């Protein structure tokens, strides 16, 4: 049990997919405009990572090594399709806001990275917790980035006005602002890591 918790916890801080592994930056840049979008994207990605990790870990003996990547993609794509259908049916507004980035979870390198680097080599239980941890880490990173961007770029947080009379810095809400905020946070975490050592 202890190792399982360790597998979960490493995804949040020590091997955070966004700030440490620097994976999946394309959706991170694109959907971190508002906290609502970030939570939606994080949940959808977590669902896909967890399910694909479990299935791939349980199928690893049957997947021929030479064609493992196409096999992983088939599994991942199946779950992305499910996630997309659920979003379309129950959260149409969120689905519209996330747009192309929901189907693009298929090629999100966090998902494929976990399948290749972890699930294809470890047990089903370990892969389940690894997926949960990575998903949580990705979601938390998205929420952190999008909270900063929404607050500075629109003056609101989850559509509540936080500072009345604040003139939002539009640049932070624009794509350039995403690069700026992610870059600064990456630098900050690297600094913190170096200080901790």
């Amino acid at each position, binding site marked *: 049990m202890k190792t399982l918790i360790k597998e979960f916890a490493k995804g949040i801080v020590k091997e955070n997919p966004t700030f440490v592994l620097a994976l999946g930056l394309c959706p991170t840049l694109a959907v971190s405009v508002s906290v609502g979008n970030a939570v939606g994207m994080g949940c959808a990605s977590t669902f896909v990572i967890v399910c694909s990790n479990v299935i791939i870990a349980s199928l690893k003996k049957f997947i021929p090594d030479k064609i493992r990547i196409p096999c992983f993609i088939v599994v991942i794509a199946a779950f992305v399709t499910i996630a997309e259908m659920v979003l379309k049916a129950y959260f149409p507004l969120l689905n519209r806001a996330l747009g192309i980035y929901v189907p693009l979870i298929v090629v999100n390198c966090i998902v494929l990275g976990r399948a290749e680097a972890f699930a294809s080599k470890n047990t089903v239980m370990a892969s389940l917790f690894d997926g949960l941890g990575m998903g949580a880490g990705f979601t938390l990173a998205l929420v952190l980035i999008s909270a900063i961007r929404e607050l500075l770029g629109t003056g609101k947080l989850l559509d509540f006005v936080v500072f009345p009379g604040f*003139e939002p*810095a*539009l*640049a932070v809400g*624009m794509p350039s602002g995403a690069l*700026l905020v992610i870059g*600064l946070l990456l630098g900050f975490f690297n600094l913190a890591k170096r200080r901790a050592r």
Partner: protein
Amino acid sequence: MNNKLIVSTSPHVHTKESTARIMWLVCLALAPAGIAGAYIFGVAALRAVLIAVVSAVCTELAIQAALKKKATISDGSAVLTGLLLGYNLPAHCPFWIPAVGAFVAIAIGKQIFGGLGQNIFNPALVGRAFLTASWPQHMTRFTAPLSFDAVTQATPLALLKENKLIGHISYLDLFLGNKGGCIGEVCVAALLIGGIFLLARGIISWHIPLTFIATTGCMYFIFGGKVLFTGDWLFAVLSGGLFLGAIFMATDYVTSPLTRKGQVIFGAGCGLLTAVIRLWGGTPEGVSYSILMMNAAAPLIDRYTKKRIFGTK
């Protein structure tokens, strides 16, 4: 008794020239343009520049204290960044615009990269680009010259872009600064005085400013008119921030190429991009963006124009 044998590495002969001295001389060279700006736009202009300078210095102090680095505000580079940023603002902008701009300029434009000498982009222009992208409504509302009561007026370039340039602004007005615009860019005459001073002291060379201004002028002569080769190049050269950018910002030691050949390429690239943005781009003025883009290319230009090391092929 002091005639001991001193053994040391070169250089053995020192000049008085130092980073701090150069920075303060550039600040001095900027003074005429600031005085002209204050005369043209009134006290508001002085206030904006002052806030920018004070915020830049405070930001530098605060960051260096937080990172436990040696405070280097006495080298004048923070003052210069604040001054240049202030010159790039409309006179009647809200008080927090220069403060935020100076903070971004020093924190993100300079200290993040490791301080003076390490930055890729001109810090003042980073601040200006951030302000323009964030609060375009404040950054494009220019004060009319010699009105003293915040009457707004579009810049000559903005009028040209919208085909509203009715009548003709005389070249003399453009040269002396009787036009709408940023605080430090309007008075070409004052900028020229500062530029000649810097040239005479050998602080800048002619390579970047001349090629920058000449390329923009040539582009306008060729493409600026209704028919090729009929453009009003003098209008293009004298309006906007071309002289401020070419003399004081494109020549920044840190962010421009080191070789003379590289500086010519750099200046020509800046001029070309400025003309392209002004003629066909979405904004009326492109000097600041063109310098930022060429800043990014400066290391590449340096590598391409590096002189052959003696004894190698």
